[in-house]
């Protein structure tokens, strides 16, 4: 009898969140690890730096290859401490609030791997040397981006302050150590001020003047807000946080034209 009571208590404890929140609320299991790979190409030509980037990400509890994106564009150096950028991105596998759908019965995340979305991105990145820090090789950058998703007309502002230390060999960078904090601010969607945010550490190794290898680790928090289907169904609103450990591995190629 005692054992039965214990088992019922444990089950109730586990089921309590969904009992309170309902099945219409997406689950956000903890301890999920994701992996992102990227290949980036930079072509330096005077003040212009055309860029091409290919990204792929393994996501979710089942570690599935879902998100992939191709970004093309260019930076332009307006002043020594300021670069502007404009980019076009085509992506598949992105997940938005409204992808939490009512199957009636049951709720699932829509499989968006076959859905193509196009984004326009503008970038403003001022950067400064922090000469007062020991080593004289510290740079602070505030990367700001505006993204417009033509698929769902979502406008997003991302702000990323970051500090990088350049370890030099001779007079050229050899190893970079960066700490950044990414903030995703939804301008016309979501119910929270921050749609997503994550601190991340990055180490970049200059294998040669052309090839760089980088590794990053981020602790990502995404806030999911009520989807259209939830609102339409009359269920209670929700705002749930999903937390994942995101590791990144990439190759960067840089050519001077």
């Amino acid at each position, binding site marked *: 009898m005692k054992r039965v009571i214990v088992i019922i208590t444990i089950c109730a404890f586990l089921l309590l969140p969904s009992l309170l929140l309902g099945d219409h609320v997406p689950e956000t299991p903890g301890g999920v690890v994701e992996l992102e790979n990227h290949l980036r190409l*930079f072509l330096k030509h005077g003040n212009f730096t055309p860029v091409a980037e290919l990204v792929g990400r393994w996501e979710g509890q089942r570690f599935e290859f879902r998100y992939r994106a191709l970004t093309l564009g260019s930076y332009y150096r307006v002043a020594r401490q300021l670069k502007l950028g404009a980019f076009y991105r085509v992506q598949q596998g992105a997940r938005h609030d409204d992808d939490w759908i009512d199957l009636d019965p049951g709720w699932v995340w829509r499989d968006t791997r076959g859905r193509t979305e196009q984004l326009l991105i503008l970038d403003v990145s001022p950067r400064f040397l922090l000469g007062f820090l020991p080593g004289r090789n510290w740079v602070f950058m505030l990367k700001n981006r505006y993204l417009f998703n033509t698929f769902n007309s979502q406008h997003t502002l991302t702000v990323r302050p970051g500090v990088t230390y350049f370890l030099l060999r001779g007079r050229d960078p050899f190893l970079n150590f960066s700490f950044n904090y990414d903030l995703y601010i939804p301008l016309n969607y979501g119910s929270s001020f921050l749609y997503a945010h994550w601190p991340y550490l990055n180490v970049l190794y200059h294998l040669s003047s052309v090839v760089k290898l980088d590794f990053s680790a981020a602790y990502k928090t995404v806030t999911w807000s009520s989807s259209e289907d939830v609102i339409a169904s009359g269920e209670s609103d929700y705002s749930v946080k999903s937390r994942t450990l995101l590791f990144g591995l990439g190759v960067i190629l840089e050519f001077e034209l």
Partner: protein
Amino acid sequence: MKNMKRLLVLAGVLLLFQSASAFEGFLTYFSGSISVTRNGISVDVEIGMPIQPGDVIRTAQGATVVITLDSATDIKLRESTTLNIDQVAEDVRVSLLGGSIFSRIFGKLRGGYSVSTETVLAGVRGTEFFIAFGRKIDDRPDVWLCVNSGRVKVDVIETGESITVREGEGINILGGTKLTAPKRYRWTEELNWNTDPGMGMVEDRTDLDQAYSDLLDQDYD
């Protein structure tokens, strides 16, 4: 007998004259503000004036000077440069005390040609190269050297290390004492090697800061 004596004296005079004119140096071009100091005294500067061992030539900001030594070597001084003409006997030796110079050996030198800084000695036999002081990041400034034609042997006076820099290559001697591997540097392609005003512009305005990685120009995403 008298005629023989006269001939001997004439030969002697000719030999003496040749010795006396063994070294000829001239200022062949200048623009902007420059000075030539001889025995501690500033002399009037004009194109065609002789340049002598011991002369110290200085260029102000924006100025350029071309001197020709021993009818075999052109030296072009960029702006803000100080060059000492050390010796011209069998060998031509100059000391770069600040700034940067181009050296072009176009004729047959009697001996060798070398440029020295406080810490580096660059010696050549028939070549064209550029040497410059870089940034002072360590105790002493870096010394840059790049070769347009021929080869240059670089000796670090303090450590005794030496290296040969080949045509198309450059080298940065860190703090004037630490040799790095010679390699091709993109920024050296912008250098203006011309020392003849009759062939076009002589001034070189290459920004030597390009030689260094600009930490504010690094983007990785």
